[in-house]
């Protein structure tokens, strides 16, 4: 007898819990939090797009500056090469002079 009543209480409690769960799930408590999550996602997506855009702009700027730098570098390197060549020519053309113990062929004097 006691076990029969106990069993009924158990079944009733199980049914109660089942319906309570059913109600809880039916209320879809995650729906509100899901909509909040979507707004963040949108913001994140927008931010990502903005960053991608800015990154592309920076890449273009860097590429342009690199090209300008390379042009200037090549120009400067050619200037340095020309200056070195001119210096080498000047050194090659520079007069050589030394004091010797020889009779002079001609003499300089105040002009």
């Amino acid at each position: 007898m006691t076990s029969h009543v106990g069993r009924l209480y158990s079944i009733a409690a199980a049914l109660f819990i089942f319906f309570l769960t059913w109600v809880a799930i039916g209320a879809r408590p995650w729906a509100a939090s899901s909509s909040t999550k979507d707004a963040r996602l949108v913001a994140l997506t927008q931010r990502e797009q903005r960053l991608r855009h800015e990154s592309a702009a920076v890449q273009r700027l860097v590429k342009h500056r690199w090209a300008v730098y390379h042009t200037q570098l090549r120009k400067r390197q050619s200037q340095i090469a020309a200056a070195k060549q001119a210096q080498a020519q000047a050194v090659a053309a520079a007069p050589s002079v030394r004091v010797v113990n020889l009779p002079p062929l001609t003499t300089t004097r105040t002009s």
Partner: protein
Amino acid sequence: MESRQFRAMGTDVELLVDAAGAGEALAAAEGEFHRLEAILTRFRPESELSRLNEAGSLDAGPDLLEVVRLALEARGRTDGRFDPTVHDAVVAAGYDRTFDEVPEDGTAVIVGSVCGGSVRIDGTRIELDPGVRLDLGGIGKGYAAARAAKLLSVAGPALVNAGGDIATAGGSWPVGVQTADGELTLELSGGGLATSGRDRRRWRRNGEELHHLIDPATGAPSPSDVLRLTLVAPDAVEAEVWAKALYLAGADEAAREADMRGLPCVLVTADGRTRLAGGLG
């Protein structure tokens, strides 16, 4: 070795060629001296330089144009110590005719003239500021010597000595340089050599000894403590320019600058000392 001596530009010119059969080249080189003298002298009223000084502007020929251009470049390089606008200062000091005709003594009043006026070159036209006149005596002989040496070089290694301003083209040349107590010999291979000093072109006015080396800063003969300075440079024009610029600097500064610029030079000071500088010592 063939040689020729003649007189041009108010000085003795000597041409040397280390080759046989150089008669034609020697004649061409002498002709070049006389041709350039006729253009660059300030003592002939018909010369291109005199006409420029008279008119203040002139469509110049290539030689006057080139020498004026070189002189203006030299003025910039030497911070104005070499200056072709010293004409009036030289004349005021008494050097108003060829040196052979300048009286040794006189009573003329010396006035320091302003130097450094503007000279403009526009194409073939040279324009002087009002009152500016040019004296190319400090560069003309070097220019002529370099031109003559180039003409001689077709015959063989050559040296041109225009009253102490020397240009070479090939070969090695022992050149005598006067020191305070004698002479030393420099072996010169390439380039040019010049001597500036106040031991030759000098005269007296009102009892004061004057000379032709005008300091453009004062417009008067320089009181430098250098008596004579001989300098070697890549060409005769450079040698002439720097010999004068370093002369004006004074002995100590000249030696320091010669060392710094690597210009071999022999300095003889007024108190009778000889100094070698610019890597020569």
